[in-house]
């Protein structure tokens, strides 16, 4: 029975630029009926700028059709600013397999143009077992 590869733990991926586009923030706010500001979970947009190649990384060997989002954590040093450009630095924090079910934690650190930390994200992906 195949499962996600625990040896992928600790892998780092190249930095990616992410711009906090005001139009996109506005669209995100509209979905949740928010009047102003950058919603804290807008950080997901930065994660998705980076996630597809990680989820598709052959070294991780994740079966995308079996993946569910198990949990999500966001920490903000300061709120995101509309229009700013951020650097997203992703890594695989941990990979565990229990009874055929895989648990992958993907963490990302976000930095602003001055190199100051802005936020950290931690996403748990669950690969459902073959049962």
């Amino acid at each position, binding site marked *: 029975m195949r499962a996600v590869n625990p040896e992928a733990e600790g892998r780092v991926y190249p930095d990616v630029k992410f711009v906090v586009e005001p139009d996109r923030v506005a669209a995100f706010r509209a979905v949740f009926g928010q009047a102003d500001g950058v919603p804290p*979970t807008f950080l997901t947009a930065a994660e998705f700028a980076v996630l597809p190649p990680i989820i598709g990384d052959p070294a991780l060997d994740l079966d995308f059709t079996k993946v569910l989002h198990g949990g999500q954590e966001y920490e903000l040093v300061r709120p995101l600013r509309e229009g700013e450009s951020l650097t997203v630095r992703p890594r695989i924090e941990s990979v565990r397999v229990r009874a055929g079910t895989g648990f992958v934690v993907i963490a990302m650190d976000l930095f602003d143009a001055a190199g100051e930390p802005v936020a950290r994200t931690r996403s748990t992906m669950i690969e459902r077992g073959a049962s």
Partner: protein
Amino acid sequence: MTRRLDDVAVGQELPELRRVVNRDDVKAYADAGGDQNPLHQSDEFARGVGFDGVIAHGMFTMGHMAACVVAWAGDAAAVSAISAQFRATVSMGQEIVAGGRVRAIDAETRTATLELWVSSEREGETEWPIKRGEATVHLT
């Protein structure tokens, strides 16, 4: 306006925030958030991987929970941490209810720690699309 420290007490409940999840909103979320997984857009795909039909993104449900927190906090910028564990899927047409309460207050740092959840009634049973949600909110 950001909520004041003086107006917060341990055990205080956040006003519940309800919404019925529909396909258009989930598609709008996919476009804004960037998660175009077909599991959230194609019934055929969703059935092929063992669901009855399209389900909402976990992040759609968490975004709703965050909206409940922001409404209480008075300002999106006041939320310095937020987390969730996804424990049940949400189908189209299902109503979700976000709620929470103040678990702790730190007067020194002027922050409140909230415990949060999203519940949903399905076929007479209470499900928990989000359990053990948490947030840290700055107070003025």
